[in-house]
């Protein structure tokens, strides 16, 4: 089961030079990223408001499996889905 957030929540992420996320913090808590299960890219709506996102499915040190993404346009990171 996974919970898709209605509105993606902005989070703070520390990433390495290649853009791979190393740790993230949400609700004030910092979690390390212990594994990256999948990554994928989405490019859409280029004819209007362009969306370009790099998604990662990660496991954190707190034991959560999360889908997060890097919004290339704004350079911010967001949480989009929480897996059980």
């Amino acid at each position, binding site marked *: 089961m996974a919970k898709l957030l209605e509105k993606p929540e902005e989070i703070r992420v520390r990433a390495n030079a290649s853009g791979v996320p190393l740790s993230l913090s949400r609700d004030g808590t910092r979690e390390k990223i212990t594994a990256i299960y999948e990554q994928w*890219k989405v*490019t859409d709506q280029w004819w*209007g408001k362009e969306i370009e996102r790099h998604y990662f499915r990660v496991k954190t040190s707190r034991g959560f499996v999360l889908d997060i993404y890097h919004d290339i346009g704004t350079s911010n990171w967001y949480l989009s889905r929480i897996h059980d």
Partner: protein
Amino acid sequence: MPYVELHCHSNFSLLDGASHPEDLVARAEELGMSALAITDHDGLYGAVPFYRSAKKAGIKPIIGAEVTLERGHHLTLLARDSRGYSNLCRLITRAQLEHRKGNPLLSEAALALHSEGLVCLSGCRRGKIPTLLAGGKRDEAIAAAKNYLEIFGDSFFIELQNSLYPGDGCLYRELIELAQALGIRCVATNNVHYARKEGHQLQDVLVCIKNRTTLDRSSNLRRLNAEFYLKSEAEMQELFGQHPEVLENTVRIAEMCDVSLDFSSYRFPDFPVPGGETADSYLARLCWQRARQRYGEISTEVEDQLRYELELIRKLGLSGYFLIVWDLMEYCHKNGIPAQGRGSAANSIVAYVLGITRVDPIRHKLFVGRFINEEMSALPDIDIDVSTNHREQVIQYVYQKYGEEHVAMVCTFVTFQARNAIREVGKVLGMPAHILDQMARAVGSYSAEDIDKDLAGLEQFRRYMSSQSWQHFISLCKEIADFPRHLSIHVGGMVILSCPLSEIVPLERAAMPGRVVCQWDKDSVEDAGLVKVDILGLRMLSLIRDAAELIKKSLGIHIDLDKIPLNDEKVYDMICRADTMGVFQVESRAQMQTLPQTRPRSIEDLTIEVAIIRPGPLQGNMVHPYIRRRQGKEKVTYLLPRLKPILEETLGVILFQEQVLKVAVAVAGFTPGEADSLRRAMSRKRSRRAMEELRERFIRGALRNGVSERAASEIFEKLRGFAEYGFCKSHAAGFALLAYQSAWLKYYYPAEFYCALLNNQPMGFYTPEVIIGDARRHGVEILPVDINQSDELCTVEDGKLRLGFRYVKEMGEAAVARLKRTRSQAPFTSLRDFYLRSELSREAIENLILAGAMDCFGKPKRELLWELGILERQGRHSMMLDLPEEYQVPLPGMTELEEVAAEYKVQGLSARLHPMQVIRNSISRDGVMKSSEVVSLFPGTRVRAAGYVICRQAPRTAKGHVFLTLEDEDGLLNVVLKPAVYQKYRYVARVEPLIVVEGVLQKKEGIANVVAERLIPLKKERERQAAMYPPRARSFA
């Protein structure tokens, strides 16, 4: 780690790939790739242009395809060698021919039979193995892999892709694991669909066009991201770095592959000759026999020429080719099918004596070097014009004679150009349909490349242009320019081969049932060195034959148009008057403007006329000196005395390609082959350096011939200025003959001529309603369509032209057939009789009434329509009663305007009246004149005239000038719009069908033009006059 892309789609993966093959090659070159594969869906459509541009760029071309298997799985195949290439063609052919058009599917059984010489990659995500793995069916995936291993051995590779889709990482690991378990090598590809990342936008648009949807509504159909571009080594390294061997293997596979696409050694089939003869001996024997028939006495000139050509043909190994074409023409002659060879072939005396062409090269002083010569690198091209109505029959003959395996039609690609790009790209972007429609109709340029400049000039679209979506729209339209959109059959090209065609080029189904087409267009076929015969339908040939038959039927006279004298003064008088609507090749607006100046009076003159009035010579500034000399305004001079015999027929001006060759031979001592190379090189705008080299060779040869350097230089420049646009004289001569014949028919048998002209539409320059106007002006009475007299096509009745049912809407073939069947039992006596017996639809009957078809029953149209309504309510099968008294209502008749409007609505033309005749009263104030009145005025007079726009032309050479032809009840009127005027009234000029023009009358050399200052839509003028002046009495029927 060097990388080679082995899975790449060009725009020949129709409505899927978003780059031209040449662009993919260019990008590969930038990336430093040593080789590139193109793997379009189920076809090798772009193989030849890809091959050529890759070779030019020093990149090894790998020929392949992505095939669709029976359950819809994909598989990537690459050809290693010529055997593999043949097998690839065979496999694609089977997949295409064994299934419905547009739905090719390959069976694995077929794969097993034709696997030799092929490298097989397991495919993208839609490959069988990845699909099974993604579905958790590992055992089945293994079985599939083992099956491929068995078919391809160690030429089978597991294909790995990482397009950064969710699940790709997982799939990657599973594929690697499976490959390791079975000992199969892996190779990385990127499923490329565009050369550069930005191409993803156009790719999205193509997917939407293919699925007939818009960008906003298609998120589930489009690709998720923009990763499908040609990636660099570094980018692939990032994705596949942990397994470097998968990248190495791309290079290894590339090294294995070596295929050539030069098939010039595959000759045409051997022609079956009588026992004891060879193709050469048979051809020679035929020629000498026929020469006696053609010429009677064989003069020395004929003999020398014939001997020379036969020897040349023998040396070039072309006897078989000539016999094939001769056989085809014999079939046409024996079956009464009008046909003639066109183009440069008419330069050949062999072609003439064999009856392939109708132009005597001796009489017309032609030059065979233009057609064949010793140095030729490509095969000669023989094109045959055949009566359009019989073309199919001739094609069937070729299939039947040489076998279906050895013959195929050449394909052609319908491409995106300005109009359809606007409509389709705009629709995908969600732009409003009516705006797109206006833009598409208003755009002037043909090519989509100039769209921004073109539309920017138009006021009505200005307000959209600042938006961001406009930018996208414009740049996408430009990008999609020249993209192939779908496949169609080329008008006439047929490929004939000695070996089964499907070994050289894949075949597929055409839209026409039973028809098979090869996947290459005519350029690819030519570049690959294959033999092609073009069998083109020429409607004029059908027209001539139809007219002759009509004359026989209506007058009992048998006319053999090949025997009419070619010097009838009256016919030339008509031509010189520019009374040439419907006459082959000399009916265009440009022609009509020049005929009174050039005044052709012989077939030779007509040949020149056909050749010179084309955009080319008009730009090269050659027509004017010829016309000036013709009119005696300029002295006829020759740069050198030795040029006189070559150029005297064209008054010292170089007009024909054959003359270029002869001049090069006479002045610089070139051989015919060298001269033809010179001509071709000049006509292709070679680089400066190449031109310099040619010039030097020419001058050296001239000096050796005792010609001064100055003269030689001047002549070379003349040749160069001309060469781009010169016309082939033999081609023009063939056409001149047809021009004369059609003019002769128009003069002596106008009713039959116009009837044949109408029945063979669409053809020529003018539409049916304009043709009818011309017929009327020539004294031919037009009878409206009649329920009892008419046929589907137009006919001649007592010297009058009876319109056919074909123009009436809702009267299709089936309806006409039913009507005729019913009529053959007994003629129709009333509307009711017709209604009950014919059982045609209400719309059809209504349209027939409005077209005047039932005027023969003596009742006005309104009454008939009313009666029809009653009949419909009563129904066909109720008890038939006479129309009761109380239902008969006196109705006002239709006014002339209403009648003509109704006629136009239901059949697109009127038998009796021109629309201008009917509207005339409502615009006749304020000095609006008829065309006949205008042309009788003094030059310089200010005039106002009105008419229906039947022609709009903006020739590139005219520097922004636009030409309109207006038609009214009295004839045609020429209007010239100077660039500034055109800019100002552009929308009216482009889109309005009826206009009023104000301007100054200009008269030169017997031609009248109105130089416009203002254009007004006619409806506006009517409103204006109606508001300003009291209404005139209207006529009531």
